[in-house]
């Protein structure tokens, strides 16, 4: 809630000029990334471990990378800012890729069977909603915030850029 009020508040009032305030918000995003990274890791270890060793390793590496990125963002600074942009971009791309795979699989079955059926449509939509909720939502807010002009400016000022 705190995070959302920060984002909405800045958006409405356009008063996020305070450098330390921007940095604090980025740290909050960093903390969330850190927590979500752990959440992904635990899910991939205990809830849905992949049967494929390569995929299993990739899920572990990806989760750990998000944890590390979160930690770097927590530390703050310009590097933390760019890491935040990078991890949000990566997660958004991943989210889009997973949605695209779901759509492609649905299209494939539709092409084969000539119909998709209500049940399969619901399952696909449910799958897409899960992917967006668990993977897409946080980076959307994170990216939207980090790319705000005020935030970028505050980081330039803090690091002495022109």
């Amino acid at each position, binding site marked *: 809630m705190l995070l959302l009020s920060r984002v909405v508040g800045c958006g409405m009032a356009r008063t996020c000029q305070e450098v330390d305030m921007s940095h604090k918000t980025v740290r909050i995003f960093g903390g969330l990334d850190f927590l979500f990274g752990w959440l992904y890791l635990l899910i991939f270890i205990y809830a849905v471990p992949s*049967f494929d060793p390569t995929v299993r390793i990739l899920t572990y590496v990806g989760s750990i990378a998000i944890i590390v990125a979160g930690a770097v963002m927590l530390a703050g600074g310009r590097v933390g800012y760019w890491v935040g942009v990078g991890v949000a971009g990566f997660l958004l791309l991943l989210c*889009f890729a997973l*949605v*695209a795979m779901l*759509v*492609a*699989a*649905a*299209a*494939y*079955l*539709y*092409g*084969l*069977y*000539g*119909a*998709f*059926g*209500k*049940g*399969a449509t619901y399952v696909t939509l449910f799958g897409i909603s899960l992917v967006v909720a668990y993977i897409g939502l946080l980076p959307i807010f994170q990216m939207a915030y980090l790319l705000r*002009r005020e935030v970028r400016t505050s980081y330039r000022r803090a690091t002495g850029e022109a």
Partner: protein
Amino acid sequence: MAARMPLRWKVTLAVGIPGVLLWVLWSAVVGWVALDPVQGIGPGARYWVIESLRATSEGRTRPSVPAGTVGRDLARRFPGPVFVTLYLRGRVIFRFVSKPRQPLSRVVADACRSLGADASVRSLSTEDRRASRFKVDLTLAQGPILTKPRLLLALSVVPGLDGIGLRTASGRVAYMAPDELLRRNLVTGYRPFKFVKEFKAGLHVGAVAGILARRAQVERSGKDALPPGRLFRFRTQGFVEAPWVETGKGSILIASGREQEGADAGSGASDVAIGQGGGAGGVRDDTASRNEEGRRGLRPGGRKGPMVVVRGNTPPPRFNRRSVLAACVRGGRYMLRMLAKKPVVLDTHLIREPNGRLRPYTEQELLPGERLVRRPSRLLRGQFGYIYYPLTNDYTTGGYSLPRHAGAAYGLAVLAGLLRPFPSVPRWQVEAFRKGAALSIEYLAERVRKGRCRGPDFTCVSFGSVTDLGSTALPVVAIMEYVRMTGDRRFLDLGRRMSNFLLFMQRGDGEFCHIYDVAHNRKDCKTTLLYYSGEATLALALAYKVFKDPRYLKAAEAGLDYQTGQYLAPLTMKFLYGEDHWTAIAAHEVWPFLKKKRYAQFAYGFADFQQRQQFVQGEAFDDYVGGYGITPFFPPHLTPAGSRTEAAVAAYRLSVARGERRRDILHQIRRAFSYIVRHQVRPENSYMFVDPAMADGAVRKSPVKFDVRIDYVQHTVVAMLRGLDLVPK
């Protein structure tokens, strides 16, 4: 630049660009995978093809290629091979696969040459020739499939419609036609969830890969590996030669001679052929074998035109009350055939897999490393052949279910009662159903006699030291219906004592205890099993109708109050229904003694819930219409079309009685009946079966699974009987 862009533009772009990309992706994938089949050939050409093959097999001269539309069809080339198969009692005794893109007339000429040279075909007796049937599949389209992930590969072949092929790097091509996948039981062999052994959907990838690799003569890197090369699917137009029909009888000649009853009101054979047979017309007179027939005492006859085959099934009889009545009689006769009139030992088998696991003998052609093990099964007097496998003429009797046995007895009792008023059903047939019901109830009575279940004025059906509620509830249903339908009161005392057991098992809140420890006279009220509460409630409702004992009505009311009240309290039950068809039937049976609105609402709600899952015209494949399922990837099973429709009939009748006629439920019922009739085994659609006479009237598990458990037939037949007057004349 982007920062100065208005917010609504940003949002439009953020949603629009991915949306467009996903739409392009969707279109590209659908365009890549969808088949664009060429048109199949017309009835005249189909007739010519089959007649050419039949003439060759009998040493007659093949017909010449006609001009006109038929000639044009025969000059056409198809994108893949043409498959010619000759079936004899479920075995493939001749198979010919043409090269792709050859004119059809040339393909048929080549097939005839090969057929003429085949010693096993030449040596067929007249009886065998009549029992044999040609099947032809023309490839209309080919298309790519994905090989990863495995789940998508398993779902890449539409069950029963598509074949699968392998093209190797050296250009060698191997095929498995749709029928082969069906009769080898390979269309539902994939386990998407390794931890749920029972759930199988999609192609048995490992087995198919092995067969294709052997045919294409390539090595695989491992047991589950795919063969090197490109897998593809193909769709065919299939048509099969009609079964042999004795002149003037309307029933097929059955080589085994097991079917003695001949054509009667129950035979729908003539319906099918007249209404749907190939357009080339009429019964073909087989003059060539007349002399031999005379010498051997065989009856003269012939065949009708070839029949189009979709998913191993021929066109259904025209849907009307007559065909539904015929389906009921056929189903009843199947149940009678499965009933042991005296103790018998069945010559049954199991397949031993390479890992030592045993599985039922469901298909004739075994995989490498598998072998057949003989395991004779004993059936007691009054027991049913529990599961029948028409593809092998084999049975499973293990896991024999007393509730399902009782359900079959109930089915026979209902047949005996509800068919009595129909003049087209002979008296001897009705009497046979009555005797069958009595015999199967006697088996239950014997179980009671031999069991140890004794209480103060109650008894129950038990096999061992522990029994369940359903094993007594459904026998009560069977006995009460037997008494009501036939007037025979010999089982009345047994029925009363068993009904008392249901009272004994009822809890104070109306719910029932589902398990009873006979040895220690102890109820287990914690374990909850499917079906049983509804069955017990229905049994008590019927017991009240027979005995007029108010205790039974009060107990039925308490049961219904619980099942339409407290049982529905959890949040999930506000959205879903369970296997509650017996409860809905009970809600109708207590009318007009109990007129609670919520009983009717429960029955309507159950019917509505099922209606949402029913395939309707234009939604998926035409032959799925009327079945209950959630996607076209899993062919809808037949049993729900029976059990849920029996509940729908009850709901509809309740709505009429309450002056709230639900026409949507009526249409739901008719759709389900047409689905059942379409898939019931008839002489026309049993060309892959070892003994078509034995399987006649059976209701298979699904359009692509041929095993027949006795309750599949019971549920579907009883549903159709209960709603017969709802079918248009």
